[in-house]
């Protein structure tokens, strides 16, 4: 019986090589899609916005951006977008936190129904809820009818005001944080809370010192996701929002689709990405952290 020499530490058995090749082959198609549709166009777009037309042909420069910053209308849209996004995020998060906390500490049929209701928007597409809110919140809509039944006749519709999209954004973005925060809160055991109560802590203190730190990460991820979803939104502000100022999504669509000015639309898109970049970068960093922790 020959005694086989142990394989050199650097060599890999043929099975391992096949596995590596197979793995790379299987992910090739989606990765290709990712590169050709996301990476390359984005790079091309950023490159394109840095080309300033001049007499001697296109030159490298920030001219387009200067034009953007100089345009009062564009800046108004920018500010409005940021403000609307932050306001909706804050409200959605606060309400979701409240619901998530309630669900954490309650049982029974009422809690189950509230849970189901809070997840309902997951199944409703943007365009459907925008239209529905027009009919619900709009002039002579159902809300007005209901309020008049109870004697309230001074209803002013939020339709075509900034409040309209605000309500829609909050509505749409309730489920995700409820899910994410719910997962985070369920990791805090009942015992940990009972121990705190046993030591005399009251509800607000328990909230701030025990619960919130545990869900800090979930809160931040939920915030990032809502922020990124709302900031580039089109359908909601299109159907419910005022004609001016516009959110950047509507502005971009009008610039590209109606006004047919692709270069300007690109600058607007890059501005949108820049605005989101703080949150994007932070979301990526947090996910990286969790991946490292998991390994």
């Amino acid at each position, binding site marked *: *019986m*020959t*005694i*086989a*020499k*142990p*394989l050199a530490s650097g060599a890999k*058995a*043929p*099975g*391992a090589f096949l596995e590596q090749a197979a793995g790379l082959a299987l992910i090739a198609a989606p990765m290709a899609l990712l590169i050709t549709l996301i990476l390359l166009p984005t790079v091309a777009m950023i490159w394109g916005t840095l080309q300033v037309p001049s007499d001697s042909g296109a030159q490298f420069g920030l001219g387009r951006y200067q034009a953007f910053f100089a345009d009062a209308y564009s800046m108004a849209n920018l500010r409005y977008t940021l403000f609307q996004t932050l306001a909706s995020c804050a409200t959605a998060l606060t309400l979701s936190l409240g619901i998530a906390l309630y669900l954490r500490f309650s049982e029974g049929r009422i809690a189950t129904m509230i849970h189901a209701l809070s997840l309902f928007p997951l199944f409703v597409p943007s365009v459907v809820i925008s239209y529905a809110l027009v009919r619900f919140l709009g002039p002579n809509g159902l809300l007005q009818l209901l309020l008049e039944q109870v004697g309230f006749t001074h209803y002013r519709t939020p339709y075509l005001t900034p409040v309209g999209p605000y309500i829609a954004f909050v509505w749409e973005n309730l489920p995700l944080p409820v899910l994410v925060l719910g997962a985070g809160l369920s990791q805090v055991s009942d015992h940990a809370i009972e121990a705190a109560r046993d030591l005399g802590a009251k509800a607000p203190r328990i909230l701030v010192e025990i619960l919130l730190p545990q869900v800090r990460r979930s809160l931040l991820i939920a915030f990032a996701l809502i922020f990124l979803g709302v900031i580039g939104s089109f359908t909601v502000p299109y159907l419910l929002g005022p004609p001016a100022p516009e959110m950047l999504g509507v502005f971009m669509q009008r610039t590209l689709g109606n006004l047919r000015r692709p270069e300007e639309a690109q600058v607007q898109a890059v501005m949108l990405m820049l605005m989101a970049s703080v949150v994007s970068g932070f979301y990526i960093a947090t996910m990286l952290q969790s991946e490292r922790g998991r390994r």
Partner: protein
Amino acid sequence: MLNVTQLTKIFGQTKAVSDATFEVGLGELICLLGPSGCGKSTLLRMIAGLTPADGGQIAIDGQDMTARQANRRPTAMVFQSHALWNHMSVAQNVSFGLRVQGLPKAVIADKVAAALTLVGLDGFAKRRPTELSGGQAQRVALARCLVVEPKVLLMDEPFSALDAHLRANLREELKSLQRRLQLTTIFVTHDQEEAMELADRIVVMHAGVIEQIGPPGELYLNPQTLTVARFIGQMNEATVTLCGGRADWLGQPVSIAAPDGLVTLLCRPEDMHPGSAGIPGRIARVIDLGPMLRVSVATAEGATLTWLCSRDVNPQPGAAIRLRATRLLAFHDGRRIGGRRIGTAQPLMELRQMESVTP
């Protein structure tokens, strides 16, 4: 039938299995026995081909299997978690290996029925795995392996998730089935009782290394290393310091031909006998095991000796007693250096001998 030579597996910096070498004869059932983490499952998986080896050779029936993938080896494995597919019926589970081979439907149906009868599950063909109890599921898993007529059957702690009574029954059935079919089997377990009951020979492993291979009786009577001695059965243990070939064990002088230093002495509870000469002590506890009594004796020096005796001795707690060791095993540095049955002139080992001097 199966030859394993210098099989090695390295995970990062640790050697999970180190140069394992042994052979299994046709129709033999050997057990890989050891505590968790000793490498027995890894060794089994390397034989199956599910874990690639980092060195060494595996040969089955004279053919080298080392480079072959698991699905080309004439082995079949029963997993700890039965691993039945719950989207298939019992019959579909059992027939899987045959369907892969492309056998005709009628042949498959016959073989499946025969396999189910073998494991005592007649008429279970249409059932689903979710409807089965733990024991039934493992029987199906076994049938699934038997039906492909492997040359070597591999079993990875298949009964550890079942309750003790069921385990004992399945053990019996497995042994008689295996004998009847003359099926070469490798059985991994951490339960020494199970190994003693099932195995023709036991391979004791510890920290990736094979410590000893032998029939159960041999391992019990003649452990070659401290690990094997402690793992199988119970032991009274004492570490004494040899000085000039002599040492004192709880008042009983002992002479061993070995270099000065620490020597571990082991004595089985059933090899202790009461007498007028021997280690003085007081009976602390009597545990009634049913067929025997296990007595804890506290010695004058503060040590506790365990003594196994029959019921008619009738030991009383609190009574004074003197115990003599009639069979001692000596270990130095983990390895056996000598042993002596007191009362006969025959040493058990050719290596350095040890005498127990009775005053």
